[in-house]
Every structure is written in C-alpha cells, then in structure tokens.
C-alpha cells in the first residue's frame, strides 16, 4: 500500500493549551510524519491561532485511524465537502470541468465517505457507478447519464512514494544512467518478479521489435515457456519479426545467427505475414504447425494473452493486430488488473501507451539502450518507471539465468 497523506487544520488557543505540540506528538508517536504548512499565531491571547498540518502515514488505513485520533484533539481534515458530480449529456463526451485523473491512488468523497478509485489511470474521468464504486474511464467510454466527478473538491490523491528501506534501486531514484552495475539490477528485477508472482500478481512484458533484432527472442520465449510472463503487449513489428525469425531464421531479413543479410531477405517478413493471414490468426498458424517456436508460439501454447496494437506504418498487418487504436487501448486496459510488474523491453510507443494505462503502484522497469525512452515515460506521468539502460538482449539473457537457471 502506498503512503497516504491529508491536510488537517487545528484552530483555537492551541499554543497556550499545548494542543499544537500535543497534535504533533500524537502524529509522531503513531509512526506518521507531518509537515507544518503554516501557523498563524494570534497576536493577543484572545486571538485564536491556527495551524495547517500535512500528515503522512504509511498507508490509507493508518492515516484514517490517525485522523480519527487527531479529530479528538480538534484537528480536522480540511476537506469537508463531497466531490461534485455531473452527468454526461452525450456519449463519449465528458461534462466541462471534469476532473482529469492521475495514476496515483485516488479517493473521492461521496456522501460523506471516501471512495477509492478502483484502478487509477491517468488522463481519465472518474465515473461513479450505480453500485457506488468509482472507475477511471477514458472519455470515449462514457455514456449519456454517467455521473462524472467535476472540479477538484473532495478529491484526495496519495503522494507518490517509492518503496522504503534498502533496495538496489534506491541509489537510482528517478535518475536514468548508463553508469550502473547491470548485473545487480537484473538480479533485483528478477527478485521483484519472483515477489510479485508469489503474491499472485501478473507480469506484463511490453516488447519492441529490437527484442527480436538483438537476438533476445529465444530468451523471452524461455521466460514465457517457464511461466514468468503472463501478459504481452506489442505491435505488428515485434510479432512479425518473431514469426519471421522462427520461419525464416531472419529478423528484417538479417540472419539472427550469422548477422548477414539474407538474399531477398527484405521481403521475408512480408511473406510470413502473408502466410499467417492465409491461416487467419497466429494461433491457427501455430495449430497448423506453420509456427513451431518463438515468443508468439509460446504465448499461444501457454495461453498467455497478448494485445498487438496497430499503427500507420504496419506491413500486413498480421490478422491479430488491432487496427483501431482506441480498441487496442481498451483491450490492453481489460487485461491490466492484477499486473504487479511491467517490463518495458526496447519499446517506445507501446511502453508509453502502457504507461498511460498503469496505476502508479505497478512496478515498471524500462529496459532500453537509449535512456531517452525512460525519461520520456517519466515525463508523461509514469513516475514509477525505473530505467535500466542496457542492451535488451543482455538484460533478458541475465533474467533467464536468474529465473529459469
């Protein structure tokens, strides 16, 4: 659970009554922390004094019980009113003034009660369902009559926090650098994956075609085969080259084993895409024995869900590719609940697209030879992303060593 904080206000003769030191004492002795935002001290002893205190506790539950305790001493939450709701008057269009969400844990005060947003997603609207639950929905998904949170009153967003205590990523913070010991980081990522799996979470891999170009396909296939990947997002290119490398032994016409361009190789992926279109789907091609290895093959065999999102420069595309990008994003959305770790592997567009959909609590590792990708992801609000600047082939073979052995 992430840290939770809230601003409380205490007013009255709080200095002479020692209420202010008492309140601060109560906060610290409960293990929480505070920041005094401002203190106005009354000039005479008739004048009341007032203090605004930001209280930060380990999680929402600890905060709630601390706030109850503070209330006894007269320290009240600043937010006392419910959030405002407005109904959509057109499908796919939000009321003006809609609250634009973040991917951080968010609660909204409705009917005097704090309701948590179930799966926070950035740049969405918060929609109150009939059953009283709150969902983050992108604007194209709202329908006439949906009740949407507007304004900023009665909305509480927990501050982003990084896991506390000693961990190998501590020294990295949000900084991306190529000057880091990679072996240590790979071991740490393997450890996080293990922990997430052990607690029943899913592992998501978001893959760019470079995974195949660099010859890392077999490593990723290994991870899928051994059950370490539960979900795969990619584009037409990744899947096409994975299939091409399996059928033709080349990736974009270059031999994976020899590294030399194959004769007429530039058309290899087109021929493979063409054949798979003949079968109707990747799964059908696997069933027919046309594909007998590789990442997509292992996904089909193990029943690992994948979403292939299309783009304007796609060849083919493969029959499994979503041609409507909005539908692709929705398909990704439906699969995300339960994801604990996301690996962004040498992918820019799909990594950013996935980052947009993920709640901030999903541990996100962005592996790319180019540190600009990690920076880009963080700049677009996926602050939780930790960068590992390295060749994705080296990274995946290291991961296989740790996880598959």
């Amino acid at each position, binding site marked *: 659970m992430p840290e939770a904080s809230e601003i409380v206000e205490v007013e*009255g*003769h709080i200095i002479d009554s*020692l209420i202010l*030191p*008492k309140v601060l004492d109560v906060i610290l002795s409960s293990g929480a922390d505070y920041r005094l935002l401002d203190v106005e001290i009354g000039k005479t*002893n008739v004048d009341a004094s007032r203090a605004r205190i930001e209280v930060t506790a380990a999680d929402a539950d600890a905060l709630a019980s601390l706030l109850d305790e503070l209330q006894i001493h007269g320290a009240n939450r600043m937010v006392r009113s419910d959030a405002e709701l407005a109904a959509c008057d057109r499908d796919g269009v939000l009321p003006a003034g809609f609250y634009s969400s973040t991917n951080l844990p968010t609660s909204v005060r409705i009917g005097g009660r704090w309701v948590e947003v179930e799966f926070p997603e950035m740049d969405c609207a918060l929609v109150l369902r009939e059953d009283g639950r709150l969902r983050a929905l992108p604007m194209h998904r709202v329908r006439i009559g949906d009740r949407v949170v507007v304004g900023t009153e009665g909305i509480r967003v927990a501050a982003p926090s990084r896991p506390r205590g000693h961990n190998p990523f501590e020294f990295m913070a949000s900084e991306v650098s190529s000057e880091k010991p990679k072996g240590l980081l790979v071991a740490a990522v393997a450890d996080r994956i293990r922990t997430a799996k052990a607690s029943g979470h899913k592992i998501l891999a978001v893959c760019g075609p470079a995974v195949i170009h660099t010859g890392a396909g077999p490593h990723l296939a290994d991870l899928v085969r051994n059950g370490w990947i539960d979900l795969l997002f990619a584009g037409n290119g990744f899947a096409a080259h994975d299939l091409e490398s399996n059928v033709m032994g080349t990736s974009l016409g270059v031999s994976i084993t020899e590294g030399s361009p194959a004769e007429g190789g530039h058309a290899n992926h087109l021929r493979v895409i063409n054949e798979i279109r003949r079968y109707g789907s990747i799964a059908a091609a696997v069933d027919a024995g046309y594909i007998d290895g590789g990442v997509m093959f292992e996904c089909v065999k193990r029943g690992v869900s994948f979403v292939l999102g299309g783009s304007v420069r796609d060849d083919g595309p493969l029959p499994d590719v979503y041609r409507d990008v909005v539908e692709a994003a929705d398909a990704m959305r439906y699969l995300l609940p339960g994801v604990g770790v996301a690996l962004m592997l040498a992918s820019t567009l799909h990594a950013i697209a996935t980052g947009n959909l993920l709640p901030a609590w999903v541990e996100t590792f962005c592996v790319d030879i180019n540190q600009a990708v990690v920076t880009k992801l963080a700049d677009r609000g996926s602050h939780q992303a930790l960068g590992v600047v390295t060749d994705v082939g080296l990274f995946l073979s290291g991961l296989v060593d740790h996880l598959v052995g």
Partner: protein
Amino acid sequence: MTGLAWGRRYLTCPPTYFDVVYEINPWMHREVKADRDRALRQWEALMATLDEAGATVEAMAPAEGWPDLVFTANAGIVNGDQFVPARFRHPERQGETALDIAWFRSHGFGIDELPVGVCHEGAGDALPFGDVLISAYRFRSDATAHAYLSRLTGAAVRSIELVDERLYHFDLTFCPLDERRAIVAPLGWDGYGCRVMEALVPEPLVLEDDEALSFCANSVVVGTTVIMPVCPPRVGRQLEAWGLDVTVCPVDEFLKAGGGCRCLTLALDVTLAPTVGS
C-alpha cells in the same frame, strides 16, 4: 482570602423526575435506581445550604422524561447576559437544550448557539479561572467547540484533555476557589493538560486519586464557603488553612447518576474576561 468573585446566583432544577433510566457514564447503573424522596431531601438541603452561604437560587421547572435536567451545570455557558446552550453528546440528554434555552430566553439572556455537530456540555466542561475559560474535551465535549466558544464569548479558552472516564466532566476534576487557588485532580488529565493547569493555577490543592474519585472537586463555592458533596480530611484541613469554610452537603443519591453539588447548580453571575494581553 476573599473567595470567588462569581458564584452568588445559581440556576437549579428540582429532582421531581430524577432517576437512573439510562447509562451514559461509568457511575450510572440502571439496576441502581434513585430514591426520589431521598434525592428531594438532599436537594432541598443543598438549596438551604446555598441560601445560608448567601447565594440566590433560581429554579427552573422540571420536565418529565428528562431525568438529568436536574444537573443544570450542563445547560450551557453563561457570560453576562449571554447564554451559549450546550450541545449534548448523548441523545438521552439532547432534549434538555430546548428547555434550557426557553428558561434563559424568558429571563432576558441572549442566546448564541454552537454549530450543529459540535458537542459541548456547558459549565460541566468549562469553568472560568483567572482571565481565561478552561474547557475540557474528549468524553462529552469536542475540542473543536473551544474555538467556537472563544469566538462567541470573546474569552480566551484553554483546552484540557480528559483521560479518565470516571471523571468524564471537567467539573469533577477542577474547582476554582479564588483568583489563585483551586482544587485540582490531575488524575483526570493527560500530560499536556497537567502542564497547562500547572501553569494556570499558582496555588493548587492537588487531590490524590482516591480523593478525586470521591467527587470532592464537584463543589460549589459561595464567597468563602465551599459546599462539598464529601470532604476528605486532608482536603478539609487545607481549605480551612486557606481561610475557607467547609460545608458538607451529602448528595449521594445524585452520585448514582454521576453528579455532585456543582453538577446540580449553574452559576448565573459569570462574566468571562474579554482578555487583552496577558
């Protein structure tokens, strides 16, 4: 010793309908019913003692169904001709407020109410001392009420947290004797409260825990006379050494509902100091 500047005029209410029919403090037990005749005799004795000490007593009409109306100390805060009615914590007593407001309105007081949702049980949880109003919170009154009280009355309010449920009202832990002296029961306060009280009361008569639980702090002071429900010998000797006259007026029938002499009275001649500087 000149005694207390206020406390010569009181509002009371005869125990015609007094009984123990609910339990809202650790002293109340429904199976221990009040003996109404005995209660009435004790109350009349208290009235006579007040009169003898030189106090004027007014009585409001009792009302059936409001057994605790007899404890007028909880009706509200009096400040000159201003009355701030209580907002009771328990629904069992909330109906008393309308009766209290009616009495004060018909006797020329201006009524200023606390906001809805903020509890404060009047003089039971707030007593003037020196140039401040000391008010307690936790069991019956809310700390947030103190800022409103200060705004409504213009008085500086010192907040004290009560921590022992047996001493659920401030007037069970504190009895002002004059400008400098008071009976205090630190048993009822948290560490911060003890420090605030230490700073406020130059000459305290500090009660031992068993003395505090005897309710001896729930006394009425009329000039230099201290009218006490009980008086532990050590306390009595100290009061006499200070030049005060002690009169014990047993009200144990009311102790069944958790009240003593002070609880049965509300001083009407209090004017809170609109303090400037200290």
